[in-house]
């Protein structure tokens, strides 16, 4: 189960600016390495893909392995040439897709 994605995008930027984006989502990122009290392996359940697009164009994406910490955090950059919308998408092992969007205006 994953929920509550949080993204930090500047409200506006000048054309040509490179901005910093930060994202955080709650997810336990169960590694598949741990065992429960009875010695049974707890099945792997992680977010395995994160993507960020701007007006439909890919900006940044990441393939995640179990070694990424719980509540995966990402910080990356994007170059802004026009006003538009960032779309952030997380996909986990169960096939759940969490999506959130954030607009940015030109200065």
């Amino acid at each position: 189960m994953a929920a509550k994605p949080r993204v930090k995008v500047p409200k506006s930027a000048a054309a040509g600016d490179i901005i910093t984006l930060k994202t955080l989502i709650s997810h336990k990122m169960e590694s598949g390495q741990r065992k429960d009290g009875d010695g049974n392996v707890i099945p792997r359940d992680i977010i395995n893909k994160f993507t960020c697009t701007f007006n439909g164009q890919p900006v940044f994406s990441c393939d995640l392995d179990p070694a990424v910490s719980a509540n995966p955090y990402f910080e990356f950059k994007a170059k802004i040439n026009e006003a538009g919308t960032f779309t952030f998408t997380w996909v986990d092992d169960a096939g759940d897709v969490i999506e959130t969007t954030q607009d940015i205006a030109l200065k």
Partner: protein
Amino acid sequence: MNTSKREFLGKTLTAGAGLAVAAFLGSTRAFAAAEDVQKAIEEFAGGKTPGEGVITLNTPEIAENGNSVPVSVSVESPMTEDDYVESVMILAEGNPSAQVATFHFTPASGEAVASTRMRLAKTQNVLAVAKMSNGDVFSATNNIKVTIGGCGG
């Protein structure tokens, strides 16, 4: 070219040998073997030998909690349509499975800079391998001392 290849192999093999020995001596948990790391790099790099420089890997020297170790990479590149960083793979040699995460950049990224947080099972080397749009490959290695491992038991 030859020297750098030899140096690189020498480094990774020495680092890996310790792990392999530990695994043979009856360690209860399987850790990524040197061959796995080597294989992952080869697959990622398409057979090219990674060069040095261009890529910067930022990690703490000492991580008190292996459950959440900040890692950030930056790669020098003009990030234009013809010349940009395609992807950067992070590997942890001493984890049960070496792969940590692979970042994919595009010219729209503006700069090839990314950060996340990772789990580390124990004190070990962490590698970052960058692949450019022209196929060139670069790598950087940092050693991180881990006080409490982060893989659960």
